[in-house]
Structures are given as structure tokens and as C-alpha cells.
């Protein structure tokens, strides 16, 4: 049955090709089911191969299945071959197993996506690449898989590339991984120059031909590669950003499989590590331990449900590196498997939550969801107990094993490593409890307005007051104009009064100077009469106009007062709006939502819409994988129980792949029990502490969630600052050098060549006689050489 091994990568590859060409035509959901089944076939085949391999005596569980000669140039010969041994088959089992479940889950999760089939094209290609990575019998084919999974990771992180942030996250992952790949390649080259082969069979059996110095350099180079792919310090920065991809991708690639390939690679090369000087183990262990601690502290203060899990993944991978550093390969693989189960479970659970909340990822706006999504909540709690290290769930057994080996390790600072490990375990239990409480218990907060919505509402309110004020301003201006007009009227009337009194005087004079006998006398008296009457009339008009002015002035004053009060109101509202801070305060289970009484009527549509929709449990395609993974996460500890030699199934199984390089425990039984009980106590304390902070509000969480934690200790920021500042200047220098010196030389050469070519063209006139001459000259030269050889 072992001969079937070639089918393991072939199935997903066939699925990839099928969907690549016909995916769009198959459409939703058929394309998803096709992909799932191809991955499932691969799992079944793996299981068959596993059974076949298990049926053989332990010493013979090492098969190289050569498919064909891939490259053959001189002594450099690489076969396209598969290495079937316990390690590779173990990897394949959980890659295809967890992979199938996640494929199935994705059918529900990606429902309605316009690029539904494309998603499964990538997913199948990923599984095929991952299988090549672990099943290859040489470093080159592993590298092919290594790059293949990297490419798929890139494509899937930026799957929704319409959003620039997602595309950037994809690029970041790609670029960061290139740094690690340099290590992988250099390591491969160095191994080839030292052993003249890159086949694992040669490397594993002939590693003692390496000098310790060379082996150390090889180990460090591969550590660099592994740190890139497995997101260890200082190359971890891409993984939290990789959460931009769809959640099933986070679960499959960025939690369960691809990110563990660094751990796999180092385990695969264990004879080289064994040959290396002892400090290399210390380096690996310390990188792992520091990464584990670092990421755990950051996870405590994250509010994005996936970011918590991302940092948690970095942290757990750190554990695996720690294990490898102390020579505990079996616990590393053990933890890799249990982690694959529970972390995939947690990611898928978070995906289910996100799905149920229509895309919400902020835990501050979750809470109380167990009422709405019982299956998700129950399975998530199983995952939580597993990762928090609560017996008898799987995480406890594997983590405890790593801590035990660390305690027992004979490298420098071994006990310090153990302390770091146990502190990390404490933090892990703490932040996961926090996550579970914030997501599933306490007040329901999903309908609360978001910070953006609150800001929007305040902006709306300010706008509405402002438009109100604008009306008042207009009215005031009108009244002002009316007053002006009335004043002008008064002036006019005053002039009329003055004129009438003038008229009266002149009329009086005229009457006085004239005699009655005159002809015009009568006329003049009439005029005088008229003028006398006009005077009072004009005066009445004037007083009326003056009254009007008064009235207008009153109205204006009134309006002005109103305007002032409105403006005061604007100031007041603006002040309020400015004072509303974006509340980034940590939230606990009991936290009431932000006070919205002031802005209730102004909240945007997205808020009002949400009030009508309730969180919902996910469809069966999503919950079934959750349940299966929960079961696995609960019982996977059975793989390697520490009680007796006979219950160390995984250790016996992996033995042929480890060439006796596994560290042998020297601790007594009492120490083991003591450590285990201490670890349980730590987990219990952390869970209790988290409950008292987030459930019972005994401690203010803002004292725990420090700024530094929330910002990942500014590591990412400093990278960005460096590469944007001094780094940028350096790159500009390189760019200048490239443009002027390198390109200049290239262009110069190209011009020179062109010129030379054109000149040589003259030798080709198209005449047979000149060609014959050329042949003759050539012949003479050759003849002279040979004749010269005679003497």
C-alpha cells in the first residue's frame, strides 16, 4: 500500500487542474465539493499508506519512491521522488485531514463570493504544494513545495485584493518570506558542496561527514528559512497581517499547516542539527522561547478576534521551536498536531462568529454570542480548554511534554527557558479566557454602534445644528436689510419735512410781499394754504417712518439674540463632539455600550440596519468541521500519553525518522508529576485571573492591556520607520548606483555592441566572391595553425 504514496499529491493536483480549467463552469457549490473530495481522496490514500507503513517493522519504515529523474547534469542528479517515512506520513495525515475539513467549511464560508471557484483552485494547489513539501525526498523538491505554499499564501492573503490593505498584507508576507528563503537556499547549496547530494537519504545517513562547524552554519541557515515560514522573531511580522485573508485560509495555511513547515524542516534535518555544535540548539530554543513570550504578551491586548489567534499561533510555534532547540522532536511534532487541531478549530470558530455577525471582527462588539451560536460557542470552548492547557484536553499533554523536556534540557540556561515557557503558558490561558469571555459571555454588544458610527453620528448632529444656524443667519440678514431700508425711508421723510417748511416760508414771504389787488394774490394764498397743510402731513409721515424703524430694529435685535444662542449651541455641540473620544478602553463582559442618548437620532444607516439582524448560527458545512475538530482537539492527547512507555505511541511511531537524536529524559517521576501539577495550577490561576478581570470586573483591564502590548511592542512600527527612513536613503543610494553605474555600463556595452555589429555588417556585402574570400582567409588561418603544429 506504500506504493500508493504518489497518489497523495496527485489528487489535489488533479483537483487543481480540473478546477483551474472548469472551475467557473462548475460554479458554486459544485467546485467546492470537487475540491473537498479531491482533498478527501488524498486523505484516504494517506491513511492507506499509513496502515501499510504501520504494518512494517519499525526499522524498515523508510521508503524512497522515485517517480522519475528530474534533473541530471553531471554529478548533480535530482529525482522527483517521495520519501515515505513516519514523519512525512504524520504530516500528510493532518495536512489532508484538517485540509479536507477546512475545504468543506469553506463551502459555507465563501458562499456568495464572486470568485468562489478560484478560492478552491488556490486551496487545492496549496494542499498539493504542502504535500510535496513534506513528502519530498530531496531539498529541491521540498523547496518547490516551500515556494508553492508561499505563492498560494500570497494569493490567498490578498484574495480580496480590491482592498489595498489586503494586497499589501499579501506582499508583506511574500517579501518577508524571501528573506527566510535565502537561508533555505544557502543551506541547500552548502549541504550540496559538503555532501555532493541534496537527497534526504544521503543527508540523513551521511550527516556525520559534516564538520560541526559546517553543520552549525547549515543549521543556522535553515533556521533562518524556518523562522521566515514559521513566523519567528524577528521575521514574524507578516503573520498577523496575513489575517487579511479569508478565515479558512488563516486556519489552514496560517495556523495548521504552512506555518509549521519550518518546524517540519528542522525536524527532518535532525541528524544535521545533532551534528552541529551545541550552541545552535540554544539559539533555536531561545528564539522559540522569546517568540512564544513576546507573542503571548501581544495577544493579551488585541481586540481583533483573529489577531488574538494570529499572535497565539506565533506564540505556539515558538513552543515548537523551543522543543526542537532542546532536542524534543517528538513533543514538537506532538504539539504541531494538537495545535493543528485546536488552532484550526479556534480559527474556524472565529470565522463562524465573523460569518454570523456579517463581517464583524472586533471582540469589543461581540459578547453573549453563546445564546445565538451554541455549536460555535461549545466547540470554541473546547478549543479554548485545549490551548489553555486544561487536562484532559489535547493541548495540555503536548505543552506539558515540551515544558518537561525544557526543564530536563542540558543546554545553557535551560531552567530560564522553562520559566519563559511557563510564563507563556500562563499568558496563553489568560488571553484565551479573555477571548472566550469577550466573545461568548456577558453583555451582548453586537448591536452597539462602532466608534466610526458614533463619530459619524456626532458629525451628523453638528451638521444639522449648523444648517439650523444657517437659516437663522439668513433671517437675520433679511431683517438687517429691512432696518436699513426703513432708515433710508426716514431720511427721505425728513427731507420732505424740511422741504415743506421751506415751501411754507417762501409762500409766506410771497404772500407778504404781494398786495391783495394783485391778480395772483388769490393764487398765492391758495399756495400758502397748501404749504401750511403739507407741513403737518410730512411730519406725520416722518413719525410713522420713525416708528417703522423702531419696529425693524426690534425685530433685528430679537433675531440677533436668536442667532447668538444658535451659535452658542453650535459651539456647545462641537465641543461635545470633540470631547467624544474614540473609546479604546478595554472592554469586559459587563461593559455597557457607549452612551448614545445624545446622538440616537443621528446614527448612520449601518447602525439602524444592524438592529434588525440577529447573529445566526452557521450552516452545517461549517459546523460539522467544527464538531469534528473539537472532538479531535479534545482527545488528541491520546497520541502520546506520558503515563507509561507503552502509551508513547507517537514517540515509537516517529522513532525511525529521528535517528536516535531525540533527547532522553533523565527527570524522575516525581519531577514529572510536580511539573505537570505546577502547569495545571498556572493554567487554573490564569483562567481564574481572567475571569475576575473580564467577568467580574475586579481589576481594571486597562492596567493589564498596556499600550505596548496593543502595538506589538512597536516592532513592526520600527521596521517601517527604519525602512522608510535610513533604510530608504540606503536603498536610494543603491538605486542611484544601479541607475548610473550599472545601467550606464550596460547601456555603454549595448551601444558598443550595436556599433560593432553594424561595422561588422560591412563584411557581409552579399557577394559570393567576398564570402569565398572570407572562407579562404579562415582556411589559411586554420591551415597555418595545423602546419605550425607540425614543427
Amino acid at each position: 500500500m506504500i506504493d500508493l504514496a504518489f497518489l497523495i499529491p496527485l489528487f489535489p493536483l488533479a483537483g487543481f487542474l480540473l478546477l483551474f480549467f472548469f472551475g467557473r463552469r462548475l460554479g458554486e457549490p459544485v467546485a467546492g465539493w470537487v475540491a473537498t473530495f479531491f482533498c478527501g481522496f488524498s486523505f484516504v490514500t494517506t491513511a492507506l499508506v499509513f496502515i501499510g507503513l504501520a504494518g512494517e517493522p519499525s526499522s524498515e519504515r523508510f521508503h524512497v519512491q522515485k517517480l522519475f529523474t528530474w534533473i541530471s547534469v553531471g554529478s548533480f542528479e535530482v529525482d522527483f521522488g517521495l520519501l515515505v517515512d513516519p514523519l512525512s506520513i504524520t504530516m500528510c495525515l493532518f495536512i489532508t485531514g484538517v485540509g479536507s475539513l477546512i475545504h468543506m467549511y469553506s463551502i459555507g464560508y465563501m458562499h456568495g463570493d464572486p470568485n468562489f471557484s478560484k478560492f478552491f483552485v488556490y486551496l487545492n494547489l496549496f494542499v498539493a504544494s504542502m504535500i510535496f513539501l513534506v513528502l519530498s525526498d530531496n531539498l529541491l523538491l521540498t523547496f518547490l513545495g516551500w515556494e508553492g505554499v508561499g505563492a498560494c499564501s500570497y494569493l490567498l492573503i490578498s484574495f480580496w485584493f480590491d482592498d489595498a490593505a489586503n494586497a499589501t498584507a499579501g506582499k508583506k508576507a511574500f517579501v518577508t518570506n524571501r528573506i527566510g528563503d535565502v537561508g533555505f537556499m544557502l543551506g541547500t547549496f552548502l549541504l550540496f558542496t559538503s555532501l555532493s547530494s541534496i537527497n534526504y537519504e544521503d543527508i540523513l545517513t551521511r550527516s556525520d561527514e559534516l564538520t560541526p562547524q559546517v553543520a552549525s552554519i547549515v543549521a543556522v541557515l535553515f533556521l533562518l528559512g524556518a523562522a521566515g515560514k514559521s513566523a519567528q522573531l524577528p521575521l514574524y511580522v507578516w503573520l498577523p497581517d496575513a489575517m487579511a485573508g479569508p478565515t479558512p485560509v488563516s486556519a489552514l495555511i496560517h495556523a495548521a499547516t504552512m506555518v509549521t513547515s519550518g518546524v517540519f524542516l528542522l525536524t527532518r534535518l535532525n541528524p544535521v542539527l545533532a551534528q552541529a555544535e551545541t550552541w545552535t540548539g540554544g539559539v533555536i530554543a531561545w528564539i522559540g522561547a522569546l517568540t512564544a513570550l513576546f507573542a503571548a504578551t501581544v495577544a493579551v491586548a488585541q481586540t481583533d478576534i483573529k489577531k488574538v489567534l494570529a499572535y497565539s499561533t506565533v506564540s505556539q510555534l515558538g513552543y515548537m521551536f523551543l522543543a526542537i532547540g532542546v532536542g524534543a522532536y517528538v513533543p514538537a511534532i506532538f504539539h504541531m498536531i494538537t495545535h493543528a487541531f485546536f488552532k484550526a478549530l479556534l480559527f474556524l470558530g472565529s470565522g463562524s462568529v465573523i460569518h454570523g455577525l456579517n463581517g464583524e471582527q472586533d471582540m469589543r462588539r461581540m459578547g453573549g454570542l453563546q445564546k445565538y451560536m451554541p455549536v460555535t460557542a461549545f466547540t470554541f470552548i473546547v478549543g479554548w480548554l485545549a490551548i489553555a492547557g486544561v487536562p484532559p484536553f489535547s493541548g495540555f499533554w503536548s505543552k506539558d511534554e515540551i515544558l518537561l523536556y525544557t526543564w530536563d534540557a542540558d543546554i545553557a540556561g535551560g531552567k530560564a527557558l522553562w520559566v519563559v515557557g511557563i510564563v507563556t503558558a500562563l499568558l496563553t490561558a489568560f488571553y484565551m479566557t479573555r477571548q472566550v469571555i469577550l466573545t461568548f459571555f456577558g453583555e451582548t454588544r453586537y448591536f452597539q454602534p462602532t466608534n466610526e458610527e458614533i463619530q459619524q453620528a456626532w458629525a451628523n448632529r453638528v451638521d444639522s445644528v449648523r444648517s439650523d444656524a444657517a437659516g437663522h443667519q439668513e433671517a437675520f440678514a433679511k431683517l438687517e436689510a429691512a432696518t436699513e431700508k426703513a432708515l433710508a425711508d426716514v431720511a427721505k421723510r425728513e427731507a420732505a419735512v424740511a422741504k415743506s417748511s421751506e415751501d411754507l416760508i417762501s409762500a409766506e414771504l410771497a404772500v407778504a410781499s404781494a398786495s391783495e389787488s394783485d391778480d395772483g394774490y388769490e393764487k398765492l394764498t391758495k399756495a400758502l394754504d397748501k404749504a401750511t397743510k403739507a407741513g403737518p402731513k410730512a411730519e406725520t409721515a416722518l413719525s410713522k417712518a420713525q416708528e417703522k424703524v423702531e419696529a425693524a430694529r426690534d425685530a433685528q435685535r430679537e433675531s440677533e439674540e436668536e442667532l447668538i444662542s444658535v451659535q452658542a449651541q453650535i459651539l456647545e455641540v462641537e465641543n461635545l463632539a470633540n470631547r467624544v473620544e474614540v473609546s479604546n478602553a478595554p472592554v469586559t463582559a459587563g461593559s455597557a455600550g457607549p452612551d448614545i442618548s445624545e446622538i440616537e437620532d443621528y446614527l448612520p444607516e449601518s447602525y439602524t440596519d444592524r438592529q434588525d439582524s440577529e447573529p445566526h448560527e452557521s450552516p452545517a458545512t461549517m459546523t460539522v468541521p467544527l464538531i469534528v475538530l473539537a472532538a479531535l482537539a479534545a482527545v488528541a492527547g491520546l497520541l502520546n500519553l506520558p503515563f507509561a512507555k507503552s502509551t508513547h505511541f507517537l514517540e515509537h511511531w516517529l522513532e525511525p525518522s529521528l535517528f536516535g537524536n531525540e533527547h532522553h529524559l533523565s527527570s524522575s517521576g516525581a519531577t514529572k508529576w510536580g511539573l505537570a501539577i505546577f502547569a495545571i495550577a498556572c493554567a487554573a490561576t490564569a483562567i481564574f485571573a481572567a475571569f475576575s478581570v473580564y467577568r467580574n470586573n475586579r481589576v481594571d483591564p486597562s492596567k493589564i492591556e498596556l499600550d505596548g502590548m496593543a502595538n506589538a511592542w512597536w516592532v513592526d512600527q520600527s521596521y517601517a520607520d527604519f525602512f522608510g527612513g535610513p533604510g530608504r536613503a540606503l536603498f536610494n543610494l543603491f538605486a542611484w548606483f544601479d541607475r548610473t553605474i550599472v545601467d550606464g555600463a550596460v547601456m555603454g556595452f549595448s551601444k558598443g555592441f550595436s556599433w560593432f555589429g553594424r561595422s561588422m555588417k560591412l563584411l557581409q556585402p552579399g557577394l559570393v566572391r567576398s564570402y569565398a574570400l572570407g572562407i579562404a582567409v579562415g582556411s589559411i588561418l586554420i591551415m597555418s595553425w595545423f602546419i605550425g603544429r607540425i614543427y
Partner: protein
Amino acid sequence: MLAQTTSESAGIVPSVDWALLAPLVILAVGGILLITISSIFPRLRFGGFPAGFTILTAVIAGGSLTRVWNDVSENGPAWVVANALGIDFYTLFVWGTICLAVFFCAAFLDGYLRREAFDGPEWYVLLLMSASGGMILAASQDLILTFVGLEILSIAVYVLAGLHLRRSDSQEAAFKYFILGALSSALFLYGIALVYGATGTTLLPGVAVVRTDNPAGLNPLEDSSMILVGMALLMIGFGFKVSAAPFHFWTPDVYEGAPSPIVAFMASGVKVAGFAGMIRVFWQGFGFYVADWKPIVSVLAIASLIVGSLLALAQTNVKRMLAYSSITHAGFMLVAVHGVPYEGGFRTTAEESLGAQALLFYFLAYTLMVAGTFGVASIVSGNGDAATSLDDYRGLAKTSPVLAGLMAIFLFAQAGIPFTVGFWAKFRVIVSAVQTESYILAGIAMLAAVVAAVLYLRIVVSMFLTDSVPAVALAVDDDDLPEANEEVQAERAEVGTLGPIVIPRAGLAAVVIAAVATIVFGLLPGLGSGVLSDAADALIALRISS
């Protein structure tokens, strides 16, 4: 063994093991049958019959190769026809490559002849004859037979080059090719005479034994002068055939003028046969004189690499560009030839001789790439086989994306881009040069590969990144006289060079096969490595067995 050889050849009628010669006989008899059948049934002259018959012949000949291969692997290499022909894995590998070249050429000819309105099986008959001559050349262990093979190969191609009766370019090409070919044949023949005079035999194993049987270094003439001069003349003859600089002058003119499908055969089949004959003569016959001829091979290689890559830059006609590119390829193959002998000329296994493997791999790779390239070129060249300037390829990606895509594959392969067969071919050659510590040669080969890449990229850029030139602009380029302009324009409109390109089915199928093989061998370069190393072993053994 030599004594036995000579006594046998003294017999009147040598016994012939026909089964071992099957591929050769099939090609020759196929040609004769084809001309006979189409004379009796004139109607068969038209349509697909001649092409189909030729392809079938090539396939059958190729199939019979596998039988002969099995025979050889059971009974070991054989010397047949009075030891004049050596049938070994090396010979069979070259024969296979020649069959492949015939297959491609016939497939391209089919659509070409229909388009150009030529009827007639003559093209195919000459093709088959030429190929059988190439097979003789590759297998021959007798210098006389080598000459006969060379002439059968060449004369047929001279005629083929001039068969496009309506194109004066074609006839000019044939004429130049013939005159210069006659010159080189004369030199070659004189070289044979000198070798015979020096050693008293024309059999290559005999030539080798004469020298190695005289530990004192004495040959019948008591010194090496005649044999050295003879070698020089033979080298010139082969250098002409494989278009190595400075004997390359005919190549651009002939490639430009000859019908495109025929160029496909000239570049692949003729060149491969020429190299096969060259390495056989020099390795099997003059293995003792490696120190004398190896430097000349390196000089020819360097000259070819430089001339081919640099002169290509100044060209504007795609067929001329490809002619110079074929000179560069000849340079690469010469580097591989240079890598076949180890220092001093002795080695025990082919494992050490990357040169032999590189050379044979290059044969196959080059046949695929160059046949594909000229296959596309003969389709694009349009009615009258005239659209071969760089401008005619502008915007091809828009008018015919399939052709442009296929052409791009072949051009990238020729440029040596990874994931194509061309990369591995060049890589192997350079590795072999490094292995024999010919670092200067390796360096020049790498530089030439870079410079040559410009040429291929120019065509790719032309196809993909520019729009097609309007007819008027083309005409202005062609001639400055306005009335001539109009004429040319009218002619073009009539002939329809700028019209839609008609893609013949057989031609396209063959091009696709070549493209797929180019990619598959690029991704899986180890495919068939057993066959390759067997053939390389056999090549190395030619020297050791003597």
C-alpha cells in the same frame, strides 16, 4: 580488429545487416517510393498525400529506431557494410533527431506549399534524400562514405533552397549556397586525400590505429604533416556545413532567401548531421590528435559566439536574425564538442564527459526550438514568403495571439530562459566547459547568451508591445520613391501580407508539439536521461575502442 577489418573490406560484396540499417533504408526507399507513386498517380501530387507520406516515413523510421536500439543494447554496437557504418547508441540518437527534423519540416511544408501554390512531391523527396544523407554522415566510419553522405545531404538542400521559383531571393540563395558549398566540398575532399595518403586508409578506426600502433609516433610517412593538413581541411569542410565562423558567410543570405520550412530543416537536421559527422571523424579518427584540433575548435567556438551574437544586433529581418542566432548556437555546440575530450583525450566513462551529454542534449533541444521558430516564421511570412522583417511581426500578439505565444516560447527557449529546454541545453554546455576547466570559453558562452537574448527579446517586444505598422509606413520603409510606394502598397494589399494570417492545421499541430516538448523538457530536464547517457557513453566509446 583492424586486420580483420581490412581483410573483410577486401571482399567483393560486403554482407549487409539490413535490419540495423532500417531507419536509413526506410527514409531513402520512402523517398524513391514517393516519387514513383506520384508519377504513376499524378493526382496524388496535390493535397496532403506527399506530406502525409513523408511524415509517415519519418515516423516509421523513428519507430524502427527503437527496434535497432534494442538490438544494439542486446548485441552491442555493430560495424556494418564493411565497417563503413557504425551503428551504436550515438548514431541512433542522431538518427532520431534527424527523423524529428524531417517530421517538422514536412509538417510545415504542407501548409506552405498550398499557400504558395506549389504542387509536387519533389520537395518531400529531396527532403527525405537529404535526411538519409545526413544519417549516412552521422554513422559513417569511412571518410569516403562520409563525403558521400555529406554530398547527398548538401546537394538536396541546395536544390531545396532554390525551389521557390517565383522568388529571386530563393534562387540567389541556392546559387550562393551551391558555389560556396562546392568550394568547401573540394577542400573537404582534398583533406580526405591527404589523410589517406598519410595513413593508407580511409576507415576512421584504421586512421586511429595507424597512429596508436606506432608508439614511436611514426606513420607510414614518418611524420604527421600530411595528416595535420588533412585534418585542417576536414575541419574547414565541417565548419562550413555547421556554419561556424569564419565559414558562416553564406548563412544569413541563404536563410533569408530559402523557403522558411526548408530553413527549419537546414537549421536543425543539416546542422545536427554536420556536427554528428564532425565529432565522429575527429573523435573516432583523430582522437590521438586532440591536442592539435581542440584549440581550433575553441577558436571556432569563440568566433561563432561573438559573430553570431553581435551581428544579430544589427539586423532588421527576422530570418536573418535567426540565421545569426543559428551561428551562435553553432558556437555553443562547438563548446560542447570542445568539452567531449578530456585533457589528453582519454577517459573511461561518459559520467565524466559532460561535453558528450551536453552536445547530444543540444542536438535535441536545438531541433525542437529552431524547428518551432521557423515553423511559426513560415506561417507568419504570409503569401509569397515575404513578410519576414521585424516590422511584420509587430502587433502579432493582437492579430494572432496563439502564434505570438508559441513564438515567444521558442524565442525564450533559444534565449535560454529557465523552464524551457533551451536553458538546460545552454546550462549543460557551460557546465561541460567548466568541467574541462575552459573557463574563458564558459565565460564567453555566458556573455554571448546574454547578448543573444537581446535579439530574441527584440522579436518578442515587437510582437507583444507594439501595434502593427500601417501599410503606408511599411511602404515608405521599403522604398523612398513615391510611385514605388504606391506600387508596393498595392502589391501588399493584393498579396495580403498584412491580411489575416492563415494558420495551416498540420503546421500548427507540429509547432504545438515542439512547444509542448520545449516546456516539458524544460520542466523535467531529466526525462530520458538514460537514453541520453547511453548515447553519450557510445560517443565516448568511439575513441576508447580504437
